[in-house]
């Protein structure tokens, strides 16, 4: 079973997407802030990380940077799932090594799930 780590501080989103992905047969690990996110990524080596950018304790940019600097986690693909949409932010996370960038408000749940499934094929 493929493992997905979902780093997101908004519980509603966490629950909804988490549940939907579980129904699709994935194992979901959740982290409500950046620090926990990093710890869980190192501990459980997920197949994919979904990462929000505005997070308590450590923001998504920093989390991404640290994940990519660490030997154990640097090859795990990261999807940025955020509502920020400034061109500078997009450029920044892509240059830091994120695989793709999705603006949450602009996608239906099904579309997000399809993208995740595609990536884990």
């Amino acid at each position, binding site marked *: 079973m493929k493992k997905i780590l979902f780093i997101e501080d*908004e519980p*509603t*989103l966490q629950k*909804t*997407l988490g*549940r*939907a992905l579980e*129904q699709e047969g994935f194992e979901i690990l959740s982290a409500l802030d950046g620090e926990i996110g990093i710890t869980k990524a190192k501990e459980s080596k997920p197949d994919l990380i979904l990462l929000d950018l505005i997070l308590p304790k450590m923001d998504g940019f920093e989390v991404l940077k640290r994940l990519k600097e660490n030997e154990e986690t640097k090859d795990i693909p990261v999807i940025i799932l955020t*509502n*920020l*949409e*400034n*061109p500078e932010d997009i450029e920044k996370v892509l240059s830091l090594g994120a695989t793709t960038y999705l603006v*949450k*408000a*602009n996608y*239906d*749940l*099904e579309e*997000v799930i399809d993208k995740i499934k595609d990536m884990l094929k």
Partner: protein
Amino acid sequence: MILSQLNFIKECKKYSISLWQCPTFLFVLMGFIIILSILLSYFIASKYISDPLVTALLTLSIAFVLMILGYSIVNGFEKLAEANRLKTEFVNIVAHQLRTPLSAIRWSVGFLLGGKAAHLNSQQYEQIELIQSNVKRLIRLVDDLLDVSRVEQGRIVLKKEKIDLGKLAKEMIEQYSSYARASDISLKLKAEKKLPLISADSEKIKIVLQNLIDNAIRYSKKNGKVQIKLSKENDYIKCEVKDNGVGIPKNEQKYIFRKFFRSSNILRRQTRGTGLGLFITKAFINLHNGRIGFKSEENKGSVFWFELPIAPH
């Protein structure tokens, strides 16, 4: 003079700052004071003052007054600029804060509609679909507000590539075909063969086409016709979106690209809309060094067109 004074008051009220902080007023006032003080000091100096030192002191004190006045003018400009910055920042923050709960609703509703929670009966399904479409409307509004604030801050970055406008238009027409059918409106594309590519940001041009097609369908009457025509005009590709809908009254045509403007005959029909679409559309076309315009007649219809430069080989 009194009349133009009154105009200043109106102008300054619009900015909601006092007359003594209002640059337009202070600037004219300063002009008058300069002219008056030059004449007066010349007059006084030549008639009553023999000592050049006194004349120098007089000129100096006048210069001092003018400096203070000049300073308050600059201050007034700063206040206006600051107010504008705060407004844009406010819109930005509100928009981002709105997006989080909106995406939460969108996904939760998607969860229900996807049959992931339980099987829904048709009435439940219909109601939830209504929530879905309204949430999407709200998201669209927030997106528009963000685009407007970016346009105003000059923070739009174009990702230009060579694109085929005909292909893009076809895609957009497919996207709108069910909406057009539901509104009993025929939607057709007529494109010249082998049009050259344009150099443009496809996401932005998509929004332009969406806005124009959306408006054309929305403001058409039943059994209306919407036609999109593509042609080559010198160094430009021209796109026309023509409808035979409600049209825009003559006296309102000059406001059509203004932010939040909505035509009165449209408001009567109570169709949805934010009055932001055409403002954004024009800004995007201008950023591409393109041209945009329209022709419209009330009750006969409108043609909105834009031209984008052909990509160099």
